[in-house]
């Protein structure tokens, strides 16, 4: 610790910056795609058709019940090469993170939808709305306000979870920490640096989300 080498951190600062941007990009893309997927799955889970609903529940069960790391490896080495003929780190990372986040977000959205009182659905249906209209105009707008904080937490989780993408040749933040460690055999400089950057990212995200939550009326 005595000879903490700031010079190699300076040398890597450009890589850390690029890595940070990719980490943010991965997290934003995954929370966006994961939310769309999560909404789709949540509605699937609530289908009256038990067989169809089971398929969606099985999806959630699989992605919540297996390690994200394993999912990332399966998608990087298996799924993406099988679909596109070659491996791709960034595509695999976004795919794996989105599929995984989708499962968690689906549970959040399902709970949000179910937290809206039955009377709201009954009132809208009694006015002649079909199921889709009732969901679109009455249930979801109310549920979203309850889901939003949890979605923010999912985003913060994604910032941290995206570090696993370093194992599949995706040059995000953690990837550069490992490169630095490999090049200079310096543990503290590399890992403490990125730990601090991750902390700054999550604290900032948290601050922005809290600010944003206050702006959205609870009504």
């Amino acid at each position, binding site marked *: 610790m005595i000879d903490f080498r700031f010079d190699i951190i300076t040398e890597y600062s450009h890589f850390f910056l690029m890595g940070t941007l990719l980490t943010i990009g991965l997290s934003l893309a995954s929370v966006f795609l994961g939310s769309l997927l999560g909404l789709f799955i949540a509605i699937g889970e609530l289908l009256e058709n038990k067989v169809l609903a089971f398929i969606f529940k099985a999806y959630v069960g699989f992605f919540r019940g297996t390690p994200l790391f394993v999912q990332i490896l399966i998608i990087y080495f298996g799924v993406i090469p099988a679909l596109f003929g070659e491996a791709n780190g960034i595509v695999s990372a976004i795919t794996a993170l989105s599929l995984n986040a989708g499962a968690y977000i689906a549970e959040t959205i399902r709970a949000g939808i179910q937290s809206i*009182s039955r*009377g*709201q659905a*009954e*009132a*809208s*249906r*009694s*006015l*002649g*709305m*079909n199921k889709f*209209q009732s969901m679109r*105009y*009455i249930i979801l*707008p*109310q549920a979203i*306000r309850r889901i939003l904080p949890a979605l923010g937490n999912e985003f913060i989780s994604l910032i941290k979870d995206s570090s696993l993408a370093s194992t599949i040749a995706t040059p995000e933040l953690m990837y550069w920490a490992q490169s630095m460690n490999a090049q200079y055999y310096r543990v503290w400089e590399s890992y403490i640096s990125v730990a601090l950057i991750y902390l700054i990212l999550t604290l900032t995200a948290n601050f922005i989300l809290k600010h944003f939550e206050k702006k959205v009326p609870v*009504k």
Partner: protein
Amino acid sequence: MIKVTDLKKAFDGNVILKGINLDINAQEVVVLIGPSGAGKSTFLRCLNQLETINSGHIFINGEDITNPKVDINKIRQKLGMVFQDFNLFPHMTVLENIMISPMKVKHESHKTAYETAIQLLNKVGLLNKATAYPDDLSGGQKQRIAIARALAMKPSVMLFDEPTSALDPEMVGEVLAVMQNLAREGMTMIVVTHEMGFAREVGNRIIFMDRGYIVEENSPQNLFSHPQKERTKAFLSKILSSQNNTLNTLQL
């Protein structure tokens, strides 16, 4: 206008409606009374298929709505419903609450829906609350908005499911007044209520239900003054004495 034959409904083997037969004519105000658990609300909810029935038929203007081929969303437009706990949409203003269904379901223009909404708000005496949110309204005001919201779909029948049961006593009157006006205008109404005064004043026909059956039906005068069945007598004496007691307490 509405014809119900041998309607049966059970929840998990617990039989709530044990064979209801009923004819309701246009412009009639039918009031359903009876002890809680009699199946009054369930019956009302079966009429617009908020509850799926186990057997029997419901005909509305000759059309059997229990036929799975019938588009229930179309049928529900003709059956306005008012709930005990209002069920206004809390994320929308009063105007939006009233306008959303005409615009999204009937594809009315914003202008047409707006004009109807304003007219209805005037009718229920709440024009000044057009831009308020439901949370800012009293219970009585909420229920009047809920009535306006149902009327905006221009239904041919209005179903009222204990519309005043969740209200503070001083707000019951304003809601009943709106309903009374509606009845005067010739709206066909089916009302589940414990307000015997309203039943007597506004109802054309009173139906006494108990334990899943229609026990007795008659004009208000006959049913309240000369109940035929023992169960009707027992119920009326119980509820009327308790309502009189409340009245006496108030007058003290």
